């Protein structure tokens, strides 16, 4: 009662001030690190940036298919080594300056060129550029060799080798195009609470209250006509998922992300709420390290894959929110799946036989590492590990559970000879299979080792993946990644356990929220009724 009274009071004050009425309140899972594009790698920041910036390439809502955004079209040169982007005309940044090819060049140089004078010296190092595109200007590793303005609305990127996935990668949420004027004016303060951020996106920066909320308001000059639908967007930082759900139920937030899967039933039962699923774009896997004796035998690894009742485990821990199959990539990449891959059937008897063939009729001891933190792909790692361990003990593998705190876990798995068996996963950055395969299987694999304790090098797979990430022929790439799919399956080095659909939720009066598999989406289409 009192809350409603408060709301009425507040609303009347709003009305009298003639201020925005349709305010979306988004329960964010944390506070952005920074709002400077290209200078962050965390999903929380990207989600916030996605509302302020546009990228050259966008994706069809709910899918990984590229569609025009700040670039209206793009094409590769015949040899595949250059990409040219035609840019949208008449777009303005929030500060009123024009968007054009020079603005794109400015942003790219800042990310790519360590000597760029506008690179901000506050400790930023633009690591994501190096991660996705080999390295920085002036190094041999850099894929990009040159970038130049062709005319006011055309920009061209030249590479040392064909980069077929460049448009989707440059379209990922890391690379929002920021206003050069604002960056020059703010210097090291750009992207921080004091300096704000200026893009061309649906919402413009108003205030960032540290530790509490980010307040954005509608961009009245947004180039997509009639959007955004809301007048303002407030992102409140609520780290605890239980607190986010409570606030959603209490109605103090309208929509929120990253709810633990166990809450699906409760959300469905609440007549004010709707669950909203994000299409799966991740994999949770069990890595088996061939540096250790029994695991160096592929039969042993396959026996383990057969012994784990993946279907039952996924049903128990994810319910409707997870699917299991033999593919390392999620179903967004179905085109790249091999038809020869059918998952290892759950068959303890056969698994036991395989173990016996490999010379371990009585099983062996296995150190099994589970993650100390919850991730979308493994929301409750310990319990899931125990379920897998129970299955393994049924074929005589005596599991010893181990864990360490997250920092050490991430680190020690890469210290030779690594963990024997461990759980980990991956969420994709952009819609290309190389983004799933390369970090895990392109040689040398730094978190799996050979019997000599050296980073594992699977030469045949390595060559295949190298071919895949440079071929500009789409049909050929499909063939290559289908082959890789099959090879990865047969090797059984990382057994895919689950592709999960992260759970999100909204109030019933919120509409138009289509979730992207890529992890963040613009809220420009989200509407609120019954205010």
């Amino acid at each position: 009662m009192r809350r409603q009274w408060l709301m009425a009071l507040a609303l009347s004050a709003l009305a009298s001030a003639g201020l925005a009425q349709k305010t979306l309140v988004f329960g964010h899972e944390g506070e952005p690190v920074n709002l400077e594009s290209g200078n962050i790698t965390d999903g929380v920041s990207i989600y916030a940036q996605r509302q302020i910036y546009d990228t050259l390439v966008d994706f069809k809502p709910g899918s990984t298919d590229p569609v025009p955004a700040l670039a209206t079209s793009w094409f590769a040169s015949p040899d595949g080594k250059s990409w040219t982007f035609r840019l949208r005309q008449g777009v303005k940044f929030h500060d009123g300056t024009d968007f054009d090819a020079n603005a794109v060049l400015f942003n790219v140089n800042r990310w790519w060129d360590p000597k760029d004078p506008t690179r901000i010296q506050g400790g930023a190092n633009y690591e994501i550029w190096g991660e996705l595109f080999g390295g920085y200007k002036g190094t041999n590793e850099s894929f990009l060799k040159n970038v130049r303005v062709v005319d006011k609305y055309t920009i061209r990127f030249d590479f040392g080798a064909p980069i077929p996935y460049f448009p989707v990668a440059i379209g990922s949420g890391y690379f929002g195009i920021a206003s050069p004027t604002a960056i020059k004016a703010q210097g090291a303060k750009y992207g921080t609470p004091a300096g704000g951020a200026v893009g061309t996106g649906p919402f413009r920066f108003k205030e960032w209250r540290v530790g509490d909320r980010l307040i954005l308001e509608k961009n009245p000059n947004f180039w997509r006509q009639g959007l955004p639908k809301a007048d303002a967007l407030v992102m409140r930082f609520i780290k605890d998922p239980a607190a986010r759900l409570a606030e959603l139920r209490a109605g103090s937030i309208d929509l929120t992300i990253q709810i633990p899967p166990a809450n699906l039933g409760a959300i469905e039962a609440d007549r004010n709420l709707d669950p909203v699923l994000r299409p799966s774009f991740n994999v949770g896997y069990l890595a088996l390290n061939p540096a250790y004796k029994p695991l160096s035998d592929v039969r042993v690894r396959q026996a383990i894959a057969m012994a784990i009742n993946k279907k039952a485990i996924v049903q128990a821990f994810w319910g409707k929110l997870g699917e299991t199959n033999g593919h390392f990539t999620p179903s967004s990449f179905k085109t790249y799946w091999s038809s020869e891959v059918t998952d290892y059937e759950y068959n303890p008897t056969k698994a036991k036989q395989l173990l016996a063939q490999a010379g371990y009729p009585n099983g062996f001891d296995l150190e099994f590492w589970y993650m100390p933190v919850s991730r979308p792909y493994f929301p409750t790692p310990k319990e899931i590990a125990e379920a897998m361990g129970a299955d393994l003990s049924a074929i005589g593998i005596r599991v010893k559970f181990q864990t360490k705190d997250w920092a050490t876990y991430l680190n020690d798995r890469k210290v030779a000879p690594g963990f024997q068996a461990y759980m980990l996963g991956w969420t994709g950055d952009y819609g290309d299979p190389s983004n799933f395969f390369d970090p895990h299987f392109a040689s040398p694999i730094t978190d799996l080792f050979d019997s000599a304790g050296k980073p594992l090098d699977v030469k045949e797979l390595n060559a295949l993946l190298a071919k895949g990430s440079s071929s500009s022929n789409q049909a050929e790439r499909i063939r290559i990644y289908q082959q890789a799919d099959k090879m990865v399956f047969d090797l059984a080095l990382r057994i895919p356990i689950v592709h999960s659909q992260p759970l999100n939720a909204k109030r019933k009066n919120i509409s138009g929220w289509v979730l992207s598999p890529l992890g963040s989406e613009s809220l420009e289409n989200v509407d609120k009724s019954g205010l």
Partner: protein
Amino acid sequence: MWAYVVRRLLGLIPVLFGISLLVFAFLRAIPGDPAVVMLGERGTPEQIEALREKLGLNRPLPEQYVIFVSQLLRGDLGRSNFSLLEVRDLLAAKWPATFELAVSAMLVAMLIGVPLGILAAVRKNSIWDNLATSFALVGVSLPVFWLGLMLVYLFAVNLQWLPSGGRLSVEADAFFRPITGFYVLDALIQRKAVVDVLSHLVLPALTLGTIPLAILTRITRSAMLEVLSQDYVRTARAKGQAERVVIWRHALKNALLPVVTIIGLQFGTLLGGAILTETIFSWPGIGSWIYEGIINRDYPVVQGGVVFVAFVFVLINLLVDLSYALLDPRIQYR
């Protein structure tokens, strides 16, 4: 007395120096490299090395410590590894929230705990005494996290009387501006959103205040009981003074001495230990911030945060010591 204050203030220097060394050493003793955590699932060895260099983690430990302390002496707490923001700015943004919450929790504890303790002592072995002591027992044993969530479900989700988290409603954003960072104060200055700000304080203050409330009840009760059995109380009664006067004027003043000590200590604890409450109520304070800093191995955040909390803690202790003089004339400062 002023000489005493100056001496105590000078005494802070070695204490803070020791704390800086301890927090520095403990942080480095926790396994897990900050660069690895920052890069998460995806870092390659080269990237990790580059980041270590950027953060100065590849320097020898003594050198890192010297850098930290010399910065500290200049009032520079460094930058958060994660947000690249100045720790000083982050502290300035966050500590008013924690301070406000801790004061409110302490008020809850004092305004309920002390009278309850007195009541229990005066009516020893009565039903009131039993109620108060069992309440105190339950209070200290309640898990903070559970209590907080129960309060949220009852008062915010089901009854919808109070907000479930944050410091200010989104509706109030439009007309409320933070000035000092102490929202209650800011609301009073602007004469706006006062109810809104206060309503956001109720549940977290209750949650955070429950344990000190229970402790204060027990301490007040036992201190009162001890004083009530003293000769001068008996004398006062024998002189025929009204019970009210005996209790409030003669007994309470002397019983307050240990109570004030506990209030001081508890308040210090609240400032640093509000982690769970701040998490449940998404309260943007330093408790949850330092906690996250530890998880992320954000060395500058933890170092700066802990040194700051320690500083406040020591300062409060000084104030407690000074307040003794007001309560007990026998105590002299030299």
